[in-house]
């Protein structure tokens, strides 16, 4: 997970690997100080969203399973920040914040933005009729074609072919959009992962596969899911770039993503980006206690030791964008979710969640009769 693990596999002969390396490190140079502050704000928001849900869940206020994204925020923020509103996403169970992070730059409350609002996402978590899909499926299985988010099933890696279909449509239309799909390292063992990336590679589609390698797939370590040294090596089987990013470093994730995105926009096809990170808690909240059985606590401490918020703030101080005092104003980093308090987060972030949770709580449940609707579409006009 150290910075020096950062490598780029670029089989495309037009782009020699040294050039590639530097290209992959240059995207961040275009970020303005405002961008940096927005990224930090998004990291806080992502963390706080998770923390809040963890607490709500513990208090028994939520149904379903919470797959915490704690410690993996840099992957979500770093991959999404540089996208265009018209690009597509397909998050998985551990990526709940991705739904609102998409196009968040357009403003948290812009109803026309190409991402979901935090309200909508909370409505989904609380299972309300105001959720996208009216809470007919749970947690992260939401999508919205108008917002450029694929609605996933539970079946891991199952949205990659859908992403390929959307990217194929882009190609037919001459549109240079990209589709990012998220997958755990465990999901790379699925057959559909192979079929879909194979198809995308053959047709040079703008599909970018983000692998959140948090070392564990539920109770199974990565070595039992993937035989290669790095999960990124899977890319070699398709002659596509397999990049490795430091998943704790939002700027490294951002660089690698932008490199792959720009390449895809130029019609050069898919990439795979392995973001190395570590799952902070149990697989889901139901697994928090059992996880201690299969994960050694030293490893867990080590895995959590590079908090992405801390890593980024240090960089911002180094860049002179934040003073040390500003960096220390809010300090959720390094704390267990339930040890954090609202004071650890910027008031605007706390307020945004408060409002969203209220919206969710006050939203109506779907009517039972809805259950029988929308099995089939009526004939279109």
């Amino acid at each position, binding site marked *: 997970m150290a910075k020096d693990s950062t490598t780029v596999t670029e089989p495309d002969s037009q782009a020699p690997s040294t050039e590639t390396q530097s290209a992959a490190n240059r995207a961040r140079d275009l970020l303005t100080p405002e961008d940096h502050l927005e990224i930090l704000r998004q990291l806080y928001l992502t963390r706080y969203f998770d923390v809040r849900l963890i607490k709500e869940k513990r208090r028994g206020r939520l149904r379903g399973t919470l797959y915490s994204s704690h410690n993996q925020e840099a992957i979500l923020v770093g991959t999404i920040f540089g996208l265009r509103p018209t690009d597509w996403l397909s998050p998985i169970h551990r990526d709940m914040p991705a739904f609102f992070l998409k196009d968040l730059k357009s403003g948290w409350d812009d109803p026309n933005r190409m991402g979901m609002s935090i309200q909508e996402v909370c409505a989904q978590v609380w299972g309300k009729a105001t959720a996208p899909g009216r809470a007919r499926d749970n947690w992260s299985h939401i999508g919205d074609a108008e917002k450029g988010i694929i609605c996933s099933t539970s079946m891991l890696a199952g949205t990659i072919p859908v992403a*390929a279909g959307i990217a194929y*449509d882009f190609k037919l239309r001459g549109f240079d959009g990209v589709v990012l799909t998220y997958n755990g390292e465990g999901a790379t063992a699925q057959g559909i992962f192979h079929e879909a990336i194979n198809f995308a590679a053959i047709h040079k589609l703008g599909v970018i596969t983000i692998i959140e390698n948090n070392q564990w797939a539920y109770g199974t370590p990565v070595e039992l899911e993937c035989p290669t040294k790095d999960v990124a090596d899977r890319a070699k089987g398709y002659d596509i770039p397999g990049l490795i990013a430091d998943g704790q470093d939002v700027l490294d994730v951002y660089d690698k993503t932008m490199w792959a995105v720009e390449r895809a926009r130029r019609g050069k096809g898919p990439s795979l980006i392995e973001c190395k990170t570590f799952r902070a808690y149990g697989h889901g909240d139901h697994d928090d206690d059992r996880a201690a059985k299969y994960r050694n606590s030293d490893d867990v401490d080590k895995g959590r030791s590079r908090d992405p918020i801390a890593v980024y703030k240090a960089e911002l101080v180094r860049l002179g964008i934040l003073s040390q005092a500003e960096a220390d104003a809010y300090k959720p980093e390094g704390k267990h979710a339930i040890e954090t308090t609202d004071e650890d987060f910027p008031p605007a972030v706390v307020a945004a969640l408060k409002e969203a949770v209220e919206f969710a709580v006050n939203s109506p449940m779907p009517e039972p009769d809805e259950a029988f609707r929308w099995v089939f*579409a009526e004939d279109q006009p």
Partner: protein
Amino acid sequence: MSVVAEQAAKKNYLAGLREALLEEMEARPDMVCIGEDIGLLGGAFGVTEGLMERYGPQRVIDAPISEAAIVGVAIGLAMQGRPVMAEMQFIDFISCGFDQIVNNAATMYYRTAGKVNLPIVIRGPSGGYGGGGPYHSQQNEAWFAHSPGLKVVCPSTPADAKGLLTASLRDPNPVIFYEVKELYRKRDIEEPIPDNHFVPLGSASIRRPGNDVTVVTYGNPAYLCLQASDELSSEGIDVEVIDLRTLVPMDDETVIQSIRKTNRVVVVNEASRTCGFAAEVIARINEMAFEYLDAPPLRVTRADTPVPWVKPLETAVLPSVESICDAIRRVARF
């Protein structure tokens, strides 16, 4: 029209399918076809012959041997509003794309509460009687009839092949379309196909009116049932043959009406027996017309075995004119 001209206008089942595809591809420039060997080759059976020449390799995709990806890609294209035809080279291979069909395509409209519908037709050659063995003879429609959100269609005449495929391609929902490959080029079922032929999904067809026993069927066995009816008419049993054509949604009305008249019914499907579609038809009849039944509704189906390859074994397990006659006689004489 002279007899000669009328003869010339007769078309086979495969031609009906091809016409539907060509016309829809022509009428809707956003439509895409995807499948194994459908382009350069024109399809294993030639159903897509000429499509790639006309519409190019971008709209007619020669897919890798990846049934699951074919369906998944079709979902993505359909989410973008494109009608998609996805071919399974044999419908038997649909099991390799099963998850994407039943869990992803079938439920998308439901999961998005009516926001995203998927105009996809997954079609392919199906059925036995051709000596194809366990993996080139399946009619596995019951799996999909049991998966809410999918329409299921199986035409048995050239005109229905065209009319139902057209309707399926225009339907906003995913449709699993069973083509009967033994009928593709069968000469004695050729018939003229009206221009712009469209057969709405969900309407059965009475292939032979009769008063004594109702036979409900679809696909290739429709012809066995017609043959059986002819044989039995000499025994004084007047059989009504209903070809369901669409299984989901099923035309309950036509079936029930018929039973109100005949009070006796036999249901024939060529798939294996347990949990086949015939069982569903019988359950519905019980629910909707129990009082009208004067005899037990019987099933004629494939035995609960795979379809064996060698001819005498295949013949032994599949419905035959004989086994259909037997069942009809039993209910007629009950």
